[in-house]
Each structure stands twice: as C-alpha cells, then as structure tokens.
C-alpha cells in the first residue's frame, strides 16, 4: 500500500511538471530551417512577422515577445559568433534551451517586447496546465480559443498568450474587432495566411 501511494505521488509530480514544461519541442529543427528560407522571401512572408514567438532571459525574470524576423536581426547583430547557423540559434532560443542575457535584452529592446508573467495566471497554469487557462478565460469558437474576459490587463493577456505558445498555439490578433484568439497549429509554420505555407508542409 505504501509503495502504491509513493508511486501515485511520483506520478502526480511528473504529470504536474509536464504541464509546466511541455515535453514536445515548440519548433523542430526542420521548421527552423524552413524559417531561415522563409526570411529570404520577397515579398516578405507574413509568417516571419505576424507569428508571435516568446523567448526568455537567463534569470527567467522576463518573457520577451518577438517574431522570426526580429530573431534574425538579433542573430546577425549579436549571436553569430556563438551559433554557427541561424536555424540552430532559432531552434535553441525558441525551445527555451538558450536564454538571453538581461543586459543584451535591454540593448535589443527594439526586437523584444518585454513583460513579466502575471503570478495569478502563471500559478493557475502551473496547477492546471493549458486546460486550466482555457476553462477560466476562454471560449471555443471557429476552431480557436477566444479570450472571454474583456477586463484582463495587458500583462494578464501576455501571460495567457505565453501559456498558449508553449503548448503549440499561434496567437491571432483581430485588431478590427478587438479580439485575441489562439489557434492550435501543427507547427509554427502553419500560420494561416492564405497559401503561404511552405512547400513541404
């Protein structure tokens, strides 16, 4: 019986940990290579700028919202020496294996919209995973999760967006109707601009 209880506790801990740190990669190495090709396109592919991507700093004090185009600028400016290829840099930073120095992030604030996680939302996520966020703050319509509350602060909204991102969702901004929604995508390269998905997808 004692063994059973011990195993149950271990299992609960592991599951809880999985909810915070999704075991799946946010971006695959193949997609990182696709991003590199996409950034060379002219006219610019909207996936390079409209897909919100979130990266972290070394102390985990801030989250930075950015996009593929800005990460390419960052790489060219500061990380070319540390990473031989852009796609490897992208793979490491988007999967949160590589984290930015705070001093560098301040210099490069142009490319990184900084925010701190909202404690209430983040604790809810840590306890209940993305399901906890969905149950408390979202409604499902038209294949997407919409924020149901209009009273969220910017920081709360940013934290919710970050939680969706690390679970494989892309943020959809409808500036006109003033709504944010989250679409589950096969990969970050599946952002829904009509016809712009790369060849091998």
């Amino acid at each position, binding site marked *: 019986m004692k063994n059973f209880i011990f195993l149950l506790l271990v299992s609960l801990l592991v599951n809880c940990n999985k909810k915070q740190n999704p075991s799946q990669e946010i971006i695959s190495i193949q997609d990182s290579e696709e991003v590199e090709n996409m950034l060379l396109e002219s006219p610019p592919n909207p996936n390079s700028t409209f897909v919100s991507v979130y990266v972290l700093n070394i102390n985990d004090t801030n989250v930075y919202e950015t996009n593929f185009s800005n990460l390419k600028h960052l790489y060219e400016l500061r990380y070319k020496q540390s990473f031989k290829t852009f796609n490897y840099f992208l793979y490491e930073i988007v999967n949160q294996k590589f984290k930015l120095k705070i001093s560098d992030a301040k*210099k490069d604030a142009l490319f990184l919209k900084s925010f701190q996680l909202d404690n209430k939302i983040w604790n809810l996520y840590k306890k209940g995973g993305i399901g906890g966020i969905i149950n408390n703050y979202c409604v499902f319509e038209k294949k997407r999760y919409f924020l149901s509350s209009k009273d969220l602060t910017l920081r709360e909204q940013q934290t919710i967006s970050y939680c969706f991102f690390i679970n494989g969702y892309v943020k959809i901004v409808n500036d006109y109707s003033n709504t944010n929604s989250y679409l589950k995508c096969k990969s970050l390269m599946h952002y829904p601009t009509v016809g712009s998905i790369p060849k091998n997808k």
Partner: protein
Amino acid sequence: MAEQTTSTGTYQSPYKFNGKELDAETGLYYYGARYYDPKSSVWLSVDPLAEKNPGLSPYNYCTNNPINAIDPDGRKIIFVVYQNNKSLQYIYRNGNFYFDGKRYNPSIESVSKSMYRVLAVYRKIEKSNDKDLKAILHTLEKSETKHYIYSNSDGENSVHPEYKSEIDPKTHNNINGKLDFTQTQFALDDKDGADFIGIGETDMTTVIHEMRHEFDYEIGNMTDDTDLHNQDNPAEIRAVHLENKARDIEHLKHRTKYGGIIVPNKLKSPPNNKMPEQ
C-alpha cells in the same frame, strides 16, 4: 458597389474598360483623378504626373501602351497572392490591381476573393465624396514605402510595421530607423465582433479601419499607440473615427466602442488626428 457572384463563382462587375466605372450619362470612364473618353481615347484633364514624362502628351494613358505599360501614378499598395508556392504581387493604381503591368480583371479572373473585395472598397473610396478617405488612399498608393496586403483564413485583421534598425550613438541600443514596409492581413469573412452588435460591419469598415493604421505608420504617427486594445488608445480612436466615415458612405450606424465606449469628444476629434495635405 455590391459584390456579386454568379453560380459559377465568377465575379460580375459593372466596371468596363480597365475596370473603371462607366458613367452612363456622360459615356466617360471615371479614374479617380480624372475622366477618360473611350470614343476619342483621350483624357479630359492633364495627368498630374505629366511633368515626369515631358516627351509625351499629358493626355496620354500609360505612355500610349495600355497593354504592357503601367500608369506610374501609384505603385506602393501591393496585394500578395500565394499560388502554387509562388508569391504574386498585384500593385494598386487608380482603382485597379496590376500584375506584371497587366490589369487584374475581376470580371474574368478569379485570382483572389480577398483581393477583389479590397479592390471593391478602394473603388468605393475613389467614387465617394470623402476627401479624407481619398487622400489617405492616394498617400499610401503613391508612397515610397511598400504597403503589403495579404489574405488570412483564420481571423487576423491587423497591421505590422517593419522598421530598419539603427544604433543610437549615445546608448548603443538598437532603435527604430526608417519605416521599411507595412504588412496588413485581412480576414474579411471573420465578422462577428461584440462591438458590432446592432451596427453591422462590412469589408469597407474593416479595410478603412486598418488603412488608418497603415497611414499612421506611413507618416510616423504611431508613437502614441499604447499597445492596449481598448477605448483609450489614441491610435484606435483615430481608426474608429475614420471607420465612421466608411459607415457614413455605407449608411451604417457609427461605431462608438473599441472594447469599451470611446469618450464622445475624443471620437469626434481624435488626438493627433493628422491628415494628408489636400
């Protein structure tokens, strides 16, 4: 102009030669800036850019070669269509989109439903008596900055500005340099926002709302954008103010909300409401 479709899905348009509207009373085609007489094949006024082509008559159209040449007036609103893994750029000028110098003819080509719908809005602006809407459209059309437009299938209606980065000599931080281009995504089928209950929303209201943001980026007037999607954001108040001009044209009730209710005086006279010189 109301959008029409046939059972085969081909768009029908009252626009005739070169997609321009034929005025039944005068027999002239309206080109936004001037009128064209199809019988005599001449313009009834001088091309505003005539001084750039001193060797040609200012009454010419497309340097006398309407098939291959493009009218230089307006070339920086670009609708990007993705087909067979290729991106095709349709450039807007004077009420038409052109690809490789050839006019997109919505009555016989079904290239992109969204492009057709955006084009229909631009033509409504050209045909309207609203000087502000026309001036903003013409500013974007004649801009040195490229304004790309894309079709989105899942609800994204928004504008992204891309700046060239520069290093601040004092702080050595990266700062925004000159505007490089803007990108706008339209999901024109996504129409059921809570703000519009009882007042309606159309392609024109959507396109003009986002056009205000494009214009503000174009003239460097987005520094007061708070990034908050609410009724207090000056950038959004300006966009709703301009949207209401579209609502006047379409005989719709004015929008008064952007999330919450916008202070009426601010909506009537928005902060930093810069307009093109006319």
